[in-house]
């Protein structure tokens, strides 16, 4: 691919803190390499801001290799930008051309309050996991890999669900701000495996209850979450969440 340089106009959401009212600021960046990642372009902009004596833009990032799920940015109207199955750190500037205007916003969700600029608080996801997204057995030493036989398909499906990095792109993208793809993946990865069996029912009931408490919206099956998920988590996991929940709820003896 040909290497080129570009000048860009950036419209970035600036917000001092959770209480303040934010607004868009326009910045110009020059001579950006097409081989930079989107976050490296932000590094260049921030250094420029520091030299100018201005406050750099706060944004989340960690691994910068597409596996941690921190780099939450809504770029030109899409979570993690225009590329599919991609995180912001893996979005490269060759996705843009000279003279482009790029609008960058934080995730917009009641359950993800803005901390500062582009940084949002995603601890609502942590609280959903704390409500049941684990198995409470004493693991002891690592057991023999094939001690418990698991169907290949179940193992594959569980693995696909476990690929979720909890980035929140599903919530950010969903027109309803629903977290059902995330919760569906987290419920599925354990529901499909024998290790998740003992707590299977309480897990789904508690996780959904917590999800509702956090103020996420309700899924209306637009499947936008699947289209924007950096890990390609399937909406089949939402169907599994629904059936797991209904089975567990209706068979529960609590009146």
């Amino acid at each position, binding site marked *: 691919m040909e290497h080129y340089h570009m000048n860009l106009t950036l*419209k970035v959401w600036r917000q001092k803190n959770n209480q303040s009212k934010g607004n*868009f600021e326009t910045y110009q960046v020059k001579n950006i390499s097409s081989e930079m990642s989107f976050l490296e372009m932000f590094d260049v902009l921030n250094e420029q801001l520091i030299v100018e004596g201005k406050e750099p833009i706060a944004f989340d990032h960690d691994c910068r290799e597409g596996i941690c799920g921190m780099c939450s940015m*809504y770029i*030109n*109207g*899409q979570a993690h930008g*225009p590329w599919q199955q991609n995180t912001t750190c893996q979005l490269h500037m060759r996705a843009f051309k000279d003279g482009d205007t790029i*609008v960058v*916003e934080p995730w*917009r*969700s*009641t*359950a993800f309050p803005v901390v500062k600029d582009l940084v949002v608080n995603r601890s609502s996801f942590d609280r959903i996991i704390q409500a049941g997204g684990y198995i409470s057995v004493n693991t002891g030493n690592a057991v023999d890999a094939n001690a418990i036989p698991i169907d290949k398909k179940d193992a594959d499906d569980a693995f696909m669900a476990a690929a979720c990095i909890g980035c929140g792109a599903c919530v950010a*993208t969903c*027109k*309803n*701000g*629903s977290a*059902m793809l995330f919760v569906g993946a987290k419920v599925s990865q354990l529901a499909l495996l024998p290790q998740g069996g003992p707590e299977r029912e309480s897990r789904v*009931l508690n996780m*959904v*209850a917590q*999800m*509702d408490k956090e*103020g*996420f*919206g*309700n*899924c*209306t*099956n*637009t*499947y*936008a979450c699947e*289209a*924007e998920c950096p890990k390609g988590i399937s*909406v*089949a996991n*939402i*169907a*599994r*969440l*629904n*059936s*797991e*929940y*209904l089975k*567990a*709820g*209706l068979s*529960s003896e*609590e*009146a």
Partner: protein
Amino acid sequence: MTFKQIFTSSIGKKFLMAFTGIFLILFLIVHAGINSCIFLNDGGETFNTVAHFMSHNWIMRFLEIGLFAGIILHIIQGLMLWSQNNKARPVKYAVNKVEANSKWYSRSMGLLGTLLLLFLIMHLSHFYVGTKVALYSGDLEHNLYEEMRTVFSIQWVVAAYLLGVVALFWHLYHGFQSAFQSLGFHHKKYSPLIQKMGTGYAVIICTLFALMPLAFYFNWI
């Protein structure tokens, strides 16, 4: 988990939406089937007989209560989803490229549903009210077939009905397969089949309904 907890949860609401939706889908088969008797070209004789049976049979009258309950529940759930989903994102995106990840009709179920509700109010005032007045005033000669002819002789009414059918098509096109997903059914082999069935269902039902006002307006029957 109590029934109240289940059915007021996000997934419980989806379940009720899907359950009532499938119930209404089944109703439309009966409705379109019976109304298609007007196409028999017998001056509405068969149609009027079936319509008379439907309005004078106590089992049907009882099922009618269920039908209204289903519609009202579907509407109430829809309104609750709409209001909660609005609260889940109070600050909207300045730029949102929604067309990149979802279909317009899947995002417009609330709007399409509102159009359908307006249509339904008009539709019931046209036909349901008249039938009930005839029933309780003991008018045994009530001719629903001729009433349809009268109603569908007005141009704007025909246009409004066609608009209603278009809204119904897109609502069903998304709703049919969506209901199965909400009930927790997703299968590599059967889900594409359900999708195709939903498309076929929406096309057939909506074509039949669209032909009814057109047939009267253009005097095909």
